[in-house]
């Protein structure tokens, strides 16, 4: 009997750490990949595809990265000529030529790694070569069902993510991006990441008081948010009619749910009552208290109204969860 116990103990000591080590390795790889997002410097060409209306739309993108700053130049596809710069906690979109002013989103620098690791379990799913470089393949599996997932390919040498596959909450692949070639010896100049002077500051993370002043009403905050999500901040954006809507951003480390609120003065705004123009689109399906206006591969959109405030919830989460968010506003 003693022999059996001793054998079992020896087996536990030698076998258990292997699984723990594997789990920790995946976690460590994710932590290092997260750090490399802020430190790595390189340039390369990426191929990206997104599912739009059941078809994959692709583009070739030139990517420059330098210490957390990113510049993406769309070389082909429907956005050819457009440049997106991420710098100093801002996302700046510079359109090709048709519009003189780009868009601007200023966000708060925050560490979502802890939240990501609380809500997702990284699992090592093997090794694979991407752009002639050896990579770990890591699956980010959600702890709470009904959330989207990602698979990332992390460079074994410098932990830069060379490929991302994104799966919607229904398990369907909705986008994929991977480097066709990458040059880690390149040193992109700072001028590539500077923001053009004529770029309008159209959207920024704001305080509640600033939002109240800009939109003219006190935003409603959902009393319910799905498990693992936390409030990230208020953002405002000017509508074509001159007024602004407020967006409340909720994140779980990997996924975003947006709650838009406005007083719907524009045509096509999500007004449920009469006399405010037509709705965004046909109600694709009614659930108590809300109307589904759009169902895209990456997210669903529900609308409702609380008093004279039109509510639009966008995100990739189960319908019941999105509707609960709306219900909790009433």
């Amino acid at each position, binding site marked *: 009997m003693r022999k059996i116990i001793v054998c079992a103990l020896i087996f536990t000591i030698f076998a258990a750490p292997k699984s723990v080590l594997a789990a920790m390795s995946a976690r460590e790889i994710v932590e290092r*990949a*997260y750090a490399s*997002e802020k430190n790595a410097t390189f340039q390369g060409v*990426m191929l*990206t*595809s*997104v599912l*739009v209306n059941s078809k994959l*739309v692709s583009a070739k*993108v030139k990517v420059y990265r330098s210490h957390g700053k990113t510049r*993406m130049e*769309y070389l082909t596809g*429907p*956005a050819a000529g*457009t440049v*997106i710069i*991420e710098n100093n906690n801002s*996302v700046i*979109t510079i359109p090709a030529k048709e519009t003189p002013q780009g*868009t601007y*989103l200023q*966000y708060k620098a925050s560490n*979502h*790694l802890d939240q*990501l690791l609380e809500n997702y379990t990284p699992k090592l799913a093997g090794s694979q070569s991407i752009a002639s470089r050896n990579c770990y393949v890591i699956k*980010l599996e959600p702890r709470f069902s009904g959330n989207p997932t*990602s698979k990332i390919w992390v460079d074994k040498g410098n932990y830069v993510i060379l490929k*991302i596959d994104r799966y919607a909450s229904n398990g369907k692949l909705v*986008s*994929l*991006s991977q480097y066709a070639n990458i040059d880690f010896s390149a040193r992109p100049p700072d001028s590539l990441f500077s923001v053009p002077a004529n770029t309008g500051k159209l*959207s920024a993370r704001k305080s509640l008081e600033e939002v109240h002043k800009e939109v003219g009403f006190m935003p409603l905050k959902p009393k319910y948010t799905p498990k693992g999500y936390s409030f990230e901040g208020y*953002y405002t*954006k000017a*509508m*074509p*009619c*001159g007024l602004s809507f407020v*967006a409340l*951003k909720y994140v779980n*480390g*990997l996924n*975003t749910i*947006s709650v*838009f609120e406005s007083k719907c*003065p*524009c*045509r*096509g*705004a999500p007004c449920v009552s009469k006399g405010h*123009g037509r709705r*965004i*689109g046909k109600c694709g399906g009614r659930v108590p208290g809300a109307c589904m*206006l*759009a169902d*895209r591969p990456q*997210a669903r*959109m529900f609308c409702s109204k609380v008093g004279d405030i039109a509510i*639009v919830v*966008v995100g990739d989460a189960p319908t019941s969860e999105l509707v609960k968010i709306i219900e909790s506003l009433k």
Partner: protein
Amino acid sequence: MKKSSHENCAEIVGRLADYSVGKTSTRLRRKIEDHIASCPNCSRELEVLIRTATLIEENIPADAPDLWNAIASRLQTKPTHLKTASPILWLARHKLHSVATGVVVLITLGALIFSNTQKAPEIGSSTYFSHHATMSLAEPFADKAALGLLSLIESKQE
């Protein structure tokens, strides 16, 4: 203090419709009669009112016994016939009010038609999707290139 003639006329004209159908009090009736006796304008106004009422009465078809019976019945049940006067008679009695009401109705209708033809700026689901994609792009481990492309495709549909 005695009111001016103009002020009196305005007051008297406003009461003429009631006077023409005997609705006024004895005191007011005397006042109106005194004024009309010395004011040709108000006198003409009263004549017009009486003539209009007569014309309307003459144009009611004689072969409508049911209608006459109904009117007679109403007159008997409500001696203060003024309160149950038909809209046509009311319009005849309140000429100025009628014109003003017509103008207000026309302006309101015109404004409604005009406002409906004015195109308000458009905001659609793409606006929200585009903004949602841009906000998602800022997250770590986000597929920035794909989200950027998605945001651009949606914003083109705005």
